[in-house]
């Protein structure tokens, strides 16, 4: 099975990291993965996006034309990528920054005021972890334990407080994804 | 019989290919003698330029690299970084160093690269047939400044020692002349100092030689030296521009 995902948002919202953690965790779970970011001026304050492919087979193309999952943290990302979601695919979006939402009815939509929830958890930086949680809750693409171990291994010594907030955000995301 | 003068060991037996009256041979000899005197022949590598002294790689009796036009300081950087146990010098003319290779010399000097650069300034492109150099004097006629160097149009000659002396890193910068036996003795001291500092790993060392080009200037060797004394030396003043070993900053 192959899952193709695009994560998009403003530069600074941590969308590249969403893809990276999903790819890293999938790799640790024995899958083939690729992670392909937009780069250059797009990274400097504009919109950023990243294509992540997770597969049981060798990945032929890392370019995602028709994502199974789109994570959109702002409205321009929905406008640009939502039309490309495969019928039956999943759109996860952040209502705090997507006032117009998405009109498609042939896909599953999950939305939450993610920026607000991140602030509520205690740090706007955990927005991307919240999104990862929603992906896990909705698709079981990766296991919570894999990413929790991953985060713990390099954050525990450096920044235990942020680690706790991150784990809390992922758990909260999983609840949103399941509901 | 007592031998009082002989060919320096640091020169090969290959005969020079320079024009009659050319001073490249003198500059080569000064460098070779200094390498001999400091006992560096087995640890020295040199980089030859493009220009009249393009065959310098055949004349110096050590491992030599022939660089692309102007790139000798970059090539020397590569050699020195690859073989920090060796000592490296470049030998360059005015077109090579002060026109096409301006970036390379300025940045090698600015890095304080541990190399010695020997720069022969005769105000003209010799090898290609007497074209204007970055150091050609105002109003001086060459094949590409047939009405004289027009400074309104093409600017003034570049004084390389003064230019490099604006940088902080270089350890030693001196301009000497090869125009008289007395000047050559002074030049020998400067070359010796550069090689000595190189041996001691002090940093970037640079010696400029004011020289002549009888062939392309269209003068006999004696007259060309007189012409250079009258015209070049007032513009390119000899002297020490930097010597950190002597507190000259």
């Amino acid at each position, binding site marked *: 099975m192959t899952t193709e995902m695009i994560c998009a948002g403003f530069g600074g919202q941590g969308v590249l990291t969403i893809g990276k953690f999903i790819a890293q965790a999938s790799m640790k779970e024995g899958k083939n993965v690729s992670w392909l970011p937009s780069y250059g001026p797009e990274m400097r304050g504009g919109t950023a996006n990243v294509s992540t492919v997770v597969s049981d087979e060798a990945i032929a193309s890392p370019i995602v034309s028709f994502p199974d999952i789109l994570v959109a943290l702002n409205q321009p990302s929905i406008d640009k990528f939502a039309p490309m979601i495969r019928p039956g695919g999943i759109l996860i979006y952040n209502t705090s920054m997507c006032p117009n939402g998405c009109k498609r009815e042939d896909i599953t939509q999950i939305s939450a005021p993610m920026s607000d929830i991140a602030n509520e958890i205690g740090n706007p930086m955990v927005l991307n972890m919240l999104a990862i949680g929603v992906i896990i809750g909705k698709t079981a693409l990766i296991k919570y334990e894999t990413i929790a171990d991953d985060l713990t291994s390099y954050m525990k010594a450096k920044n235990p407080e942020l680690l706790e907030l991150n784990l809390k955000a992922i758990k909260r995301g999983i609840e949103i994804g399941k509901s | 019989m007592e031998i009082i003068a002989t060919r320096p060991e640091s020169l090969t037996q290959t005969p020079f290919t320079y024009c009659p009256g050319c001073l490249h041979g003198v500059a080569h000899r000064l460098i070779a003698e200094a390498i001999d005197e400091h006992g560096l022949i087995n640890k020295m590598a040199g*980089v030859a330029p493009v220009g009249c002294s393009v065959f310098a790689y055949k004349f110096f009796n050590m491992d030599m690299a*022939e660089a692309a036009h102007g790139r000798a300081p970059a*090539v020397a950087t590569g050699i020195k970084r690859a073989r920090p146990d060796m000592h490296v010098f470049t030998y360059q003319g005015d077109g090579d160093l002060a026109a096409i290779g301006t970036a390379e010399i300025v940045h090698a000097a600015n890095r304080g690269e541990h190399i010695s650069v020997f720069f022969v300034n005769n105000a003209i492109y010799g090898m290609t047939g007497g074209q204007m150099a970055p150091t050609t004097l105002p109003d001086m006629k060459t094949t590409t400044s047939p009405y004289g160097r027009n400074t309104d149009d093409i600017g003034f000659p570049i004084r390389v020692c003064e230019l490099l002396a604006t940088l902080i890193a270089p350890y030693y910068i001196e301009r000497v002349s090869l125009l008289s036996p007395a000047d050559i003795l002074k030049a020998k001291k400067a070359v010796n100092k550069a090689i000595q500092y190189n041996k001691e790993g002090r940093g970037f060392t640079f010696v400029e030689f004011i020289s002549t080009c009888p062939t392309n200037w269209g003068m006999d060797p004696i007259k060309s030296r007189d012409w250079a004394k009258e015209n070049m030396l007032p513009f390119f003043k000899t002297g020490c521009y930097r010597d950190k070993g002597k507190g000259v900053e």
Partner: protein
Amino acid sequence: MAKILMKGNEAVAEAAIRSGCRLYFAYPITPQSELIEYMARMMPKVDGTFIQAESEIAAINMVYGAAGCGKRVMTSSSSPGISLKMEGISYIAGAELPCVIINVQRGGPGLGDIQPAQGDYFQATKGGGHGDYRLIVLAPSSVQEFADMAADAFDLADKYRNPVMILADGMLGQMMEPVEFRPAKSDEEVAEMWKQHKSWCINPNEDGDKKHHHEINSLEIDPLVLEKHVNNLSKKYAEIKKNEIRYEKYELSDDNEILCVAWGTASRVVKSAINELKKEGKSIGLVRPINVWPFPYDEIAKAIGPKVKKIYVFELNTGQMVDDVKIAAAGKVPVEFWGKVGGVVFTPAEIKEKLEAALKE
């Protein structure tokens, strides 16, 4: 060793260090900046040399100097910067020095853009610099292969005393994939490697007796001497052509209706399309040249199955390698080309559409 998720730019830099590269000279340019930044971080940790040169021209000439000492040395850039290096590459080829050059291609001509492209195929495989010389050119299609090629490139460079280029692109440079590194050479091994070149390279006389005068040089002013030198280079290139053909066969069979040829990043997209069409019962094969110089002419000719009615070449340019494929096909079957340019990468869906149309013809 466990797999690590890494960008191509960083993976190839790490692999180069592991293969014994201790000298690296380069100038920043997108999309290869992670490579120079990785070297800036890591070289001091292995007592290596990193210099951010004043220009790509200076960088390649520093490579010339270090390669003249027989040491493993590398530079990297992206298309416009590679053009600047061409002077030095010609000199390095002429002087027969071993070194590795990485081109993380972007869109051109001129300043172009910074997105992935394959517009430098001609420059890499047909010349680029002046004179009769050849680069060995390796074209990776994954981060793993990009990394593996660093070691291969150094071995080839040492074996043939010839510059070797790894012709990647912005996608491979920027993309992260799992990579497993080959074991690193020990410091002792690295310290000894230059000695294979001792007979010709710049090196000191060990016991103080004058023994050698080595010339690192591409100048031969006597036409008869230069003629001999160039003919010797040509003989070397013939030897490389004989020994170093590398290509991948993908879904080749006697049932193939179309044979695709694609290299690097483009080949991955073509594979996706071939897989999709296979599910619909269509048989399409692919030959991917792994080394684009020397080029697998005979191997492509052999891959033309009995039912193949067309060879389809896909590149991220306006048609460069297709010329070589036409030579390989030698008129046996028609050769068609489709490509995208400007840093726009075609999608599997687009390739599939092209192939479907060709199947219907």
